[in-house]
Structures are given as structure tokens and as C-alpha cells.
């Protein structure tokens, strides 16, 4: 240990002799204030009702997405009947005139 380290050790020893006059018990009202603030700030995710509400929200979102998908599916649209195709591709008036 060099001389500077010894100086530091002597200084630290002198500082340790300083009396601690300050009270180390919690000041009046401190614990109540901190406990109230902590409880106000704490998230309540652990409550069963809230967990249930979150699950219900998830199920509702899933149902909404499924509903939209089902309504947009082209396979769900009614297919055109063969007669409709006939009238779309042929002119019935022209066919009748040709027959007469």
C-alpha cells in the first residue's frame, strides 16, 4: 500500500467517526403516501374480470374478421345459370327473325 492509499485509508477512518444524527425511520405519512401511489399506479391485469374482457375482445375481433372473409369469398356468390349465358352471348331477336 503506497502513501496515498494510506492517506485515503486514514481519511476514510476519520469519516467513519462522523456521527449519524439523522433519523432512519420513515417520516410521518411517507409509507401511506407511497403505498397509495403504488396501488394507484399498479396495472390491474391480474384481475379475472379484466382477463375475461380481453379474451372476449379477442374472440369478437376473430368473429369480425371471419365475417368479412366469408362475405368477400367469390365462391359464395351464386353461379350464373346456363340460360343467362345464352342470353349474354346470343341475340334472341336476330334468331327469331332468321327463323321467320
Amino acid at each position, binding site marked *: 500500500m503506497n502513501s496515498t*492509499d494510506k*492517506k485515503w485509508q486514514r481519511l476514510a477512518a476519520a469519516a467513519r*467517526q462522523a456521527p449519524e444524527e439523522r433519523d432512519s*425511520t420513515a417520516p410521518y405519512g411517507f409509507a401511506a403516501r*407511497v*403505498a397509495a401511489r*403504488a396501488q394507484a399506479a399498479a396495472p390491474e391485469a391480474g384481475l379475472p374480470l379484466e382477463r375475461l374482457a380481453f379474451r372476449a375482445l379477442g374472440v369478437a375481433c376473430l368473429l369480425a374478421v371471419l365475417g368479412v372473409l366469408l362475405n368477400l369469398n367469390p365462391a359464395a356468390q351464386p353461379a350464373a345459370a346456363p340460360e343467362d349465358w345464352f342470353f349474354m352471348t346470343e341475340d334472341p331477336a336476330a334468331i327469331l327473325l332468321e327463323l321467320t
Partner: protein
Amino acid sequence: MPDDAPFDLPGCLARVRRRDQAAARELVEHLYPLVIRIVRGRLPRRTAEEDLAQEVFMKMFARLDQYQGAVPFPHWVSRIAVTTCIDHLRAQQRRPEFRWADLSEQEAEVLDAVTADEAAARPADALAARELVDKLLGQLKPEDQLAIRLLDLEQKSMVEVRELTGWNIPLIKVRVFRARRKLRQLFKALENSERS
């Protein structure tokens, strides 16, 4: 409950987890001496000790669900207190370099006494010594400051420092080595400024 009855920490924690406000108050009152001792030893300048203690307790309650019981609960809380103080010390600017002329008369006397290998005996000298130590340690990095404070001023063992801070032993040794090297430089700078 009589005053000398041991504090039922596990029971109190279980009640706090069930959001019992009275239990939270009891827990704060029980841990306040531990927290305030850590806060007072590492208080950054211009920070009210009560504000810092409150911040420590708020963090403790916010993280209570993360406490798994791997270390004793007071050690877990002391680590929160230590890291909170270090964060505050980091956030503030480093003290400007101080010279002999910046020391009070009593601090200069104490420094003279330790330099001349005399013990500072009077209580006033002890208070001045503590002021001087705070000024010197204020020049160190927060982590180095904490390591040397715990070892040399609070006379904790390496194992106790590890439990309080969560740092491993080689890291503590590195921080103490760095702190002592910086202290040597500071003593030398003070002596040079005294001569000039």
C-alpha cells in the same frame, strides 16, 4: 402486534400481492431504514433523499411480480436502491475538478492531518472528513464510487458488496482498483494545487 415481534416478510409480501394497502404501508416502514441508508450514502447533489427513497419504493412495487425469491427480499430491494442512485448520479454532470482553494478551512485541516499521519480526533473533524470524502468520491464514476464507498467506508466484505449490488467479485475488484487509482490522482492534484 408487539413492537419486538419479528416482521413476517413472506406474509406481508403475500398480502401486498393481493393489493392490501395496509400491508404495503407496513412493508415500506419495515424497509425504509435499509433504503434510506443506501440513499444517504449515495445521494446525488441537489436530490432530496425522500424523493429518491420514494422512487426506490415505487420501483419495488412495480417489479414485485418479478421477485422470484432467488435472493433475500432486502437484498433485492437494496439492488433497486443502488441502481436507482447510480442512474441519478449518471444523469447529473460530473463535479468540476476541485483544488485546495475549494476546500473549507476544516476540510483543509483534515487533509493536512491525514497527510501528516495524524488521526482526526474531534467530532467536527470527522464531519469535515466526511464532507471531504464526499467531495473526492464525487469525482469518480458512480459505479466506482459505490464500490469504494461500500468497501472502505461501510467496511463491507466483497461477498456483501456482491449481494448488495449484484456485481460479480472480479467486477467489484476492477471498480475498486479504478477508484483507488483515481483517488491517488486526486490527492496528488490537491497537493500540487496546495504548493502552487
